[in-house]
């Protein structure tokens, strides 16, 4: 919920109160970090048709968020820890047989969701955190603690550095793992690193727009960017740009929805997902999926 709101007649778009609001500032920073990492990781995910894994990692992290609330630690660490555990489990279960990957992914996902069902139930019954389910599943970007900002910045900087170092091997194993193996790449280890980075991206978007909508931020901007970009590096920039616009626009629209809907703000995640969908449909109308040369 936006705090310290003052309605001014001279500011019809509420831009001043939007930008001066400290909760909004934290939200914008966190949203930007989530957008940059998700936009970049999304490119690999879409290229290798790994959407289900990306979605499952986001969903699985909900168990961490729920346990975090139960233990009274920050949701960020809960989300991250669980997303990494799920990434390792998926790697261990599914890497050997590619044909079983979807099943293994789904089973890990189901197990993690069962755990979140339990802990969200315990959160509500024993710790009075009645909004736990909504916060974890649909995000709580306006109530994030500003102290989380620095750890998140460090995480995203490390992740983006790793992505730029391993950019070519990642693209190669995304396109064709056998080719990567033939080129002498440590495919298994790269695969695990990729899953861990994907888990980090999922945890960040879980925190901002919520667990079950994390998929949209991962896939939508990347899929749109891959249609528009002519060169690989362009697709990363476009994906990050689209993700940033969607997140900032979503936060702004949710903020001003307070004024038009008699004080009942609409959820941020609804606006973010709608904007991403519009981008995707627009990009589908503009150009067919290009076979970019990687």
């Amino acid at each position: 919920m936006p705090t310290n709101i003052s309605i001014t007649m001279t500011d019809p778009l509420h831009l001043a109160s939007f930008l001066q609001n400290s909760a909004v500032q934290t939200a914008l920073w966190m949203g930007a970090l989530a957008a940059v990492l998700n936009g970049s990781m999304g490119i690999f995910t879409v290229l290798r048709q790994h959407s289900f894994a990306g979605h499952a990692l986001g969903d699985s992290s909900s168990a961490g968020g729920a346990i975090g609330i139960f233990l009274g630690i920050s949701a960020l660490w809960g989300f991250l820890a669980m997303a990494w555990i799920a990434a390792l489990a998926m790697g261990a279960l599914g890497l050997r047989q590619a044909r079983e990957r979807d099943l293994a992914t789904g089973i890990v996902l189901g197990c993690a969701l069962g755990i979140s069902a339990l802990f969200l139930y315990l959160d509500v019954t024993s710790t009075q955190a009645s909004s736990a389910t909504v916060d974890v599943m649909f995000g709580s970007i306006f109530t994030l603690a500003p102290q989380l900002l620095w750890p998140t910045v460090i995480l995203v900087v490390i992740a983006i550095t790793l992505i730029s170092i391993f950019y070519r091997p990642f693209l190669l194993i995304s396109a064709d793992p056998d080719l990567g193996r033939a080129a002498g790449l440590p495919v298994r280890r790269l695969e695990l690193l990729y899953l861990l980075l994907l888990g980090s991206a999922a945890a960040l978007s879980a925190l901002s727009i919520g667990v079950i909508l994390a998929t949209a931020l991962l896939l939508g901007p990347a899929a749109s960017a891959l249609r528009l970009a002519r060169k690989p590096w362009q697709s990363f920039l476009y994906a990050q740009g689209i993700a940033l616009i969607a997140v900032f626009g979503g936060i702004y629209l949710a903020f001003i929805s307070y004024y038009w809907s008699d004080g009942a703000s609409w959820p941020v995640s609804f606006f973010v997902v709608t904007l991403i969908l519009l981008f995707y449909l627009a990009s589908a109308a503009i150009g067919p999926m290009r076979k970019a040369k990687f």
Partner: protein
Amino acid sequence: MFSSYLLHTWIAATLLAIAAGSLGYFVVLRRSAFAAHALPLAAFPGGALATLFGFTPLWGLGGFAILGVIFLRVFARLGRRDVAMGLLLSTFLALGGLFLSLGREYAARVYGLLFGEVLGISAASILPLALLAIAVVLLLLWRFPALLLQSSQAELASARAISNTGMEWFFLVLLALVSAAAVPIVGTLLVFTLLVSPAAAAQRLSSRPYQAWLLAIALAELLSWSSIALSYWSNWPLSFFVGGQGALLFLFSRIFTRA
């Protein structure tokens, strides 16, 4: 444990397991795990609308699940199927979140729809479930050989004049109906486990189609009955046991058939 307030739960879960187990066999065969996860989520806003306007949830859930199938087919033409599915389910979930946020009792409703409300099953919801279970089994038996062939070898099936598109629709509509029926019991997020894990285990244990199909139904019953019993004794949510035991079932079937 079999007292009257839980009796509806037992009957509903038994009927649901018949439908989910038998359809799950084809979900695994067709590798439609992602679709089996996405369609229950597509039903979510239907449940949310039903609580907002106070009509029977089953209509909302069913309507939106069918809408999900239609969108899925349209979106899939725009580009890649998995991306389409991911965006579809996010959009529907966001819509559901919006609907719920407009009503009262936001938090409790969200939990119930996502993870199920076992005690909320009324006598009135038994009849539609029974009809659905019978319809799913009969329809699957009617098209069993054709669907089996189309699921495992699509090219051979089209050579035998079995329409791929027709079978795809047939399968997805059944999946949507089962999803809609399952949401009130195990919740949007855990329908998937009930569909996939018994069937995946059954296909590991038997390679004969009809035998594996029956085994999938039996394992689905086992999974849902033991989950209700454990949930009753521990007072913990049913979906926790469905998710956890589903994973165990999958693991055991892998360990025991490795040799």
